[in-house]
């Protein structure tokens, strides 16, 4: 139909949540409908991700500008190839973009995964707008089949990154994320209430006593990291593993001090994202490189596994993401074999939202869940296809943000549309993170009692792939 015809596409250089340039695209349809989408950018990037393009002109934004390449491509080549096409035919649009890019292995390096994704998502927003439906409804109705026994809309359990470490913060923590999951909540709204209570209580503690949250040891926080969690400064002189244990202890205590329980059957559970690819060197997991004292520890994969097993036995850890490095297949198999029944094991760097890598992982017994980052693959259609593969193989698909985000909330709609059940989009601070949760609150209000919410989805037996 004519009114869904793409009439104009406009790109624009804007700032992401870290103050760096990123791309925004607007798609306008003949019928007056329009959509806008902005693309994120990762700090810890898997080596097999689709490639974002940057200007490389050192006189603007230390080479990170997108005006002269990404935006130029959107306004030029990409616009020309999509004009007059039906915005509802997402698969055809995305295929056109991939073919137009033409780069080897679908890396999208010629036009840039950032220019392609901005337009791919903006087109979906425009089609939904023209149909006068919400984006999650449009994706469910037109782009994604959920199996018939799950035809309700699921509101995802939030995985909220409260302590930042690794590439996301300037501190001594080797693990990238210490995540709280309000898995005892009865509704999405209640999960948000609890998260707000814990965040505010934690902040008051950091502010008031800035040095003594735990009785015998001191530590401090200067504020938040890129993903809205606190960037904590642990006391010097602790070994790397003790530093990580210490962070888990503080996390547990601050939740309890906010009058919530933290346990497998309590209000909150813990999820970890070690992002182990970042500290895997020559067959060893090297901890402590971020510490100034040089207490470096070299762990073999099986020693790393033993450390995880100790943590899982001591703390209510319900999920571990990237526990092993992307190129440590044996380590991953071992981890899945030993912890796959107790824990949700999420593959991010190892799968990079790529269908072929996921399929290989499934047949090799690697992980039991996958993190979905739309910009790792580069188009909406491809991302939805990966979710499909995961769900058909009883792997959980967890929709995720990136460290460099924007005010765009498309991932909230995707999470609801595909019944992901879980969303990982940072702590409840900074609008780049909070906007995604606020969008879900709005969807929850709209759906009312017809929405489904299962806080403890990460530890349900059903769907969790049993390790061999």
């Amino acid at each position, binding site marked *: 139909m004519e009114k869904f015809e793409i009439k104009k596409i406009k790109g*624009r*250089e*804007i*700032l*992401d*949540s*870290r*103050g*760096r*340039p990123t791309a*925004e695209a607007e798609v306008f349809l003949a019928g007056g409908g329009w959509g806008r989408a902005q693309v994120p950018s990762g700090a810890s990037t898997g080596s097999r991700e689709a490639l974002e393009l940057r200007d490389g002109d050192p006189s*603007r*934004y*230390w080479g990170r500008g997108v005006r002269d390449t990404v935006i130029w491509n959107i306004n030029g080549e990409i616009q020309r190839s999509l004009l007059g096409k039906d915005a509802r035919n997402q698969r055809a649009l995305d295929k056109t973009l991939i073919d137009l890019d033409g780069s080897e292995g679908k890396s999208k390096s010629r036009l840039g995964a950032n220019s392609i994704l901005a337009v791919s998502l903006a087109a979906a927003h425009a089609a939904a707008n023209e149909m006068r439906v919400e984006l999650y409804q449009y994706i469910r109705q037109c782009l994604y089949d959920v199996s018939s026994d799950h035809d309700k809309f699921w509101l995802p359990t939030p995985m909220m990154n409260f302590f930042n470490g690794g590439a996301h*913060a*300037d*501190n001594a923590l080797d693990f990238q994320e210490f995540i709280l999951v309000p898995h005892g909540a009865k509704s999405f*709204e209640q999960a*948000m*209430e609890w*998260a*707000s209570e814990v*965040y*505010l209580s934690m*902040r008051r503690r*950091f*502010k008031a006593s*800035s040095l003594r949250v735990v009785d015998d040891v001191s530590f*401090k*926080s*200067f*504020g*938040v*990291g*890129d993903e809205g969690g*606190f*960037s904590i*400064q642990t006391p010097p002189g602790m070994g790397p593993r003790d530093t990580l244990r210490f962070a888990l202890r503080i996390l547990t205590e601050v939740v309890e001090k906010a009058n919530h329980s933290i346990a497998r059957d309590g209000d909150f559970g813990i999820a970890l994202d070690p992002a182990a690819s970042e500290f895997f060197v020559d067959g060893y997991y090297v901890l402590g490189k971020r510490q*100034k004292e040089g207490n470096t520890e070299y762990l073999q994969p099986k020693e790393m596994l033993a450390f995880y097993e100790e943590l899982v036995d001591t703390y209510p850890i319900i999920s571990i993401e990237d526990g092993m490095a992307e190129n440590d297949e044996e380590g991953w198999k071992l981890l899945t074999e030993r912890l796959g029944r107790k824990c949700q094991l999420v593959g991010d760097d190892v799968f990079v939202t790529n269908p072929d890598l996921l399929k290989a992982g499934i047949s090799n017994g690697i992980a039991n869940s996958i993190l979905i980052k739309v910009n790792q693959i580069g188009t909406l259609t491809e991302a939805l296809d990966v979710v499909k593969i995961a769900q058909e193989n009883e792997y959980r698909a967890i929709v995720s943000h990136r460290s460099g*985000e*924007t*005010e765009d909330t498309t991932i909230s709609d995707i999470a609801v549309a595909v019944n992901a059940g879980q969303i990982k989009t940072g*702590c*409840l*601070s*900074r*609008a*780049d993170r*909070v*906007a995604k*949760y*606020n969008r879900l*609150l*709005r969807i929850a*209000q709209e759906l009312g009692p017809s929405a489904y919410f299962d806080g403890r989805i990460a530890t349900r037996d059903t769907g969790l792939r049993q390790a061999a």
Partner: protein
Amino acid sequence: MTLLSFAKPLIIYTSTSRPTVELTVKTVAGGSGRASLPLGYDDPSRHNGKQPIHQLVLKAIESLIPVLLGAKFAHHSAFDQLITEATEGLEDGLRANVQYLVSAACAQACSADLGIPLHKYLAEMAGFDAYRGLPVPMITLICGGKVATTPFGVQAIMVVPTGVSPFPEAVRAGSEISHALAQIFKREGKAYAIGDEGGFSTSFDGNGTREVLCCALNTAIQAIDEAGYSKPAGRIQIAIDFAAEHCKDADGRYSLVNQKDTLSVQEVLDLHQFIVDRYPVLLLEDPVATSNLDALGELHKRLERKSLIAADDLLDSVSGVAVGEPWDAVVAMPDRLGTLSDTLQFVSAAQAAGYVPIASHRSGETKDVLLSDLAAALSLPFIKAGGMSGSERTGKWNELLRISELYDANRPVLQGCLEGNGKV
């Protein structure tokens, strides 16, 4: 004639994790609008008994819905008039919050009905038919005080690219300077994080207030230099928000930078004089408690408008902008002023009385960008929307980037209203 057909509030969260209220409205013609209430640190004190502010706002909005749904109006000002009457019984701060939320959501819906961007709608509402220029961004580089968890007590050190235009270049300057500052911290092995308003938070070395403040300002100057903006001089100036009202103890002494070092009022004035003589300071916000008018008057005389004094506290209404007060600029926070008509009145009263109006965000923000549209629509000389981190801040710069596409690229960013001020 506009008729509202739908109005629904929702509890959402601000960028600082606090619950607040969002309102969605729709008109019979199909336009929809949404606004949310930002929260400052002073707001929790506005309790009525034990109820937090968002509960009070929610309740007030819910009781207004029957009025809203029956409302028929031809102009936005008529709608604002209606809201003003319907909220008469509410306590001051709460009333302003409720009025702002309803007026802002309705403005969005009406502009959607008319098929024009919000900034254009607001400009027409203010009676402007042509744009006179975009505001200069005041970009927070360093956060301290109440909006950080560090011991550094100054609320904000901002860079103001008065000599960089057009607008996208001013934003780029802010981004590149912030990036340069992060590189400096990394090089020096200094721990840092992000404060509530999107600037860096860390601690600075030195004995006593003056040394610590100079250390922070030197670091800011170094970042400006390393980002390549120190020449020609005056392209980037500095603004400092001391939020002095919050730094005053019961004896009237100030702990401006550090809890342990308190200063008498005279020492505070000397400090400001010292800073202004040595650094390219465009503006000092709340340098002394606004309640201490004598001290403010003396500082105002001493600075001779070489650096501007901006007042923030005590300026919730038009009565705060009487002629002849000892300040040069006033901070306009729409959520504290009431309906959008009230904000327009505040701004024109301020301008008539000779004050420079500055559009300002709050510490707890959302991704709502009405502030940017308002600042552009009224061609305000300055906008404070925080730093270069957090989409509640960058989203507001992004909206101004969009609006800037409608401008002649060569038009100077800054208006003539600052002429006569030696530094600009």
